[in-house]
């Protein structure tokens, strides 16, 4: 047995856009244990719920994360609507679904670019982010916001997106789909990518289930776990099926995200095609939420849970968020055991860590 040393990884590291710290216990160049610590950007957003009216708090819920922002706002709204028994119009559900899938596409392309950058594959990084810009342009056209949309509200959506515009978005998506397919092909088949990721950080389906992993991290281990299967918003009417890969390594997690780009585009086309007419909100809401509810949605990074509790007043008593990155920390700890120090950045990236989201 070699001498053990501890190497600190983060909170500032070239591959980490946000701060997380790992104490890596090494034997020679091999990680034998990884001990995470977080809290560098803990903002206590959940506590703010006591000081903001439940209708206004959705702005804060949306800002929990800068990438999965729209899904957070939908999840919060759905939780409150569940407590209040509000029947949101179908059109609002469809538009929410379309924008959640756009968020997934731009998040996955952001991640694919960051991963390419971490591997030193600069062209692929720039290409991923170039395509991502087109997605962000469409989101801006529909909502006025590229990252924070501010469209979702308790009881529906703030402003309708006209059918003509939805048609334009769908057509534009068809134009960029070949580029996304090309991207998927590169991430699946390129020798450099495969060489860097194949057989690295492997977790089996059983291990992933045991460790509570979620999202593409779990689906890369052949675990078809996806909150969209519960049929919230419009997913039950769009013929949704989760994308899974069998290998359980870094490459499998990467391919799941790449394939989900096309799956998301298909969901957008299906939603635009089936878009119902009608109002987009329930109108004026009277009273405050009295009761409690859990609600689950599938963010780009995995299953997220919002728990809200109200006492009938304008202020909620509690808002709790369990984000996918938080659930993916135990799998990460296991994935890192046995990998070389040089491979740690790639393994850490493949859970798509969002620390701002995780710490709230």
């Amino acid at each position: 047995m070699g001498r053990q040393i501890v190497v600190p990884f983060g909170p500032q590291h070239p591959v980490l856009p946000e701060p997380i710290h790992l104490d890596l216990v090494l034997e020679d160049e091999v990680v034998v244990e990884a001990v995470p610590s977080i809290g560098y950007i803990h903002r206590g957003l959940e506590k703010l719920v006591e000081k903001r009216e439940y209708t206004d708090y959705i702005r804060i819920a949306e800002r929990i994360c800068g990438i999965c922002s729209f899904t957070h706002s939908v999840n919060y709204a759905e939780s409150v609507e569940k407590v209040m028994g509000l029947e949101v119009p179908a059109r609002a559900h469809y538009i929410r679904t379309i924008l959640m899938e756009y968020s997934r596409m731009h998040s996955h392309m952001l991640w694919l670019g960051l991963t390419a950058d971490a591997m030193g594959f600069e062209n692929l990084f720039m290409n991923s982010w170039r395509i991502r810009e087109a997605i962000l342009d469409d989101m801006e056209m529909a909502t006025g916001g590229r990252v924070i949309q501010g469209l979702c509200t308790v009881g529906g959506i703030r402003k309708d997106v006209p059918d003509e515009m939805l048609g334009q978005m769908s057509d534009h998506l068809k134009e960029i789909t070949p580029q996304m397919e090309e991207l998927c092909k590169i991430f699946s088949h390129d020798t450099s990518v495969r060489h860097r990721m194949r057989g690295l950080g492997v977790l089996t389906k059983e291990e992933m289930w045991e460790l509570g992993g979620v999202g593409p991290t779990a689906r890369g281990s052949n675990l078809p776990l996806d909150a969209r299967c519960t049929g919230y918003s419009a997913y039950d009417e769009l013929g949704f099926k989760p994308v899974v890969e069998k290998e359980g390594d870094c490459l499998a997690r990467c391919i799941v995200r790449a394939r989900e780009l096309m799956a998301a585009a298909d969901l957008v086309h299906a939603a635009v095609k089936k878009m119902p007419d009608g109002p987009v909100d329930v109108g004026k809401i009277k009273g405050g939420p009295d009761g409690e509810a859990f609600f689950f949605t599938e963010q780009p990074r995995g299953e997220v849970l919002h728990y809200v509790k109200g006492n009938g007043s304008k202020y909620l008593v509690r808002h709790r968020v369990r984000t996918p990155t938080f659930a993916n920390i135990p799998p990460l700890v296991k994935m890192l055991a046995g990998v070389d120090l040089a491979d740690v950045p790639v393994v850490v990236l493949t859970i798509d860590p969002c620390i701002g989201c995780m710490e709230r």
Partner: protein
Amino acid sequence: MKDQNTTMRGIAVSDLVKETGAFKAKGCRLVQIGCTGIGDAYEINYTFDKDYVFETVRITVHDGDVIPSIAEHYWASFIYENEIHDLYGLTVEGMSIDFGGHLFHTAIENPFKNPPEVTKVEKETPAPGPEEGDA
């Protein structure tokens, strides 16, 4: 637009590990553990899932109570249990990894802990000093 299948029920702290073992035997995964401050107590929700049926069991504890860890059934529970310890100041016994209060680096120690009960004490009026001229 289907409703999600979620249920919730309260259990005693002493039954927690046994109940968790039953979920494990059923093949459920641990979805989350979350704490909520309710006045002078705390509710801790443990959510499990199998086939998208989300079952939550709830215990109610007070400051100073010791909560048993469910690590013997769910190793990954350490991340939630350390969070509860760091943010709420509650003690969880038997965690699979104990960060000793160093998982979250927060400016205020246990920021979500219920504030201690404060009793207002009337200010004592200072006793009148000796008047000028008194010997």
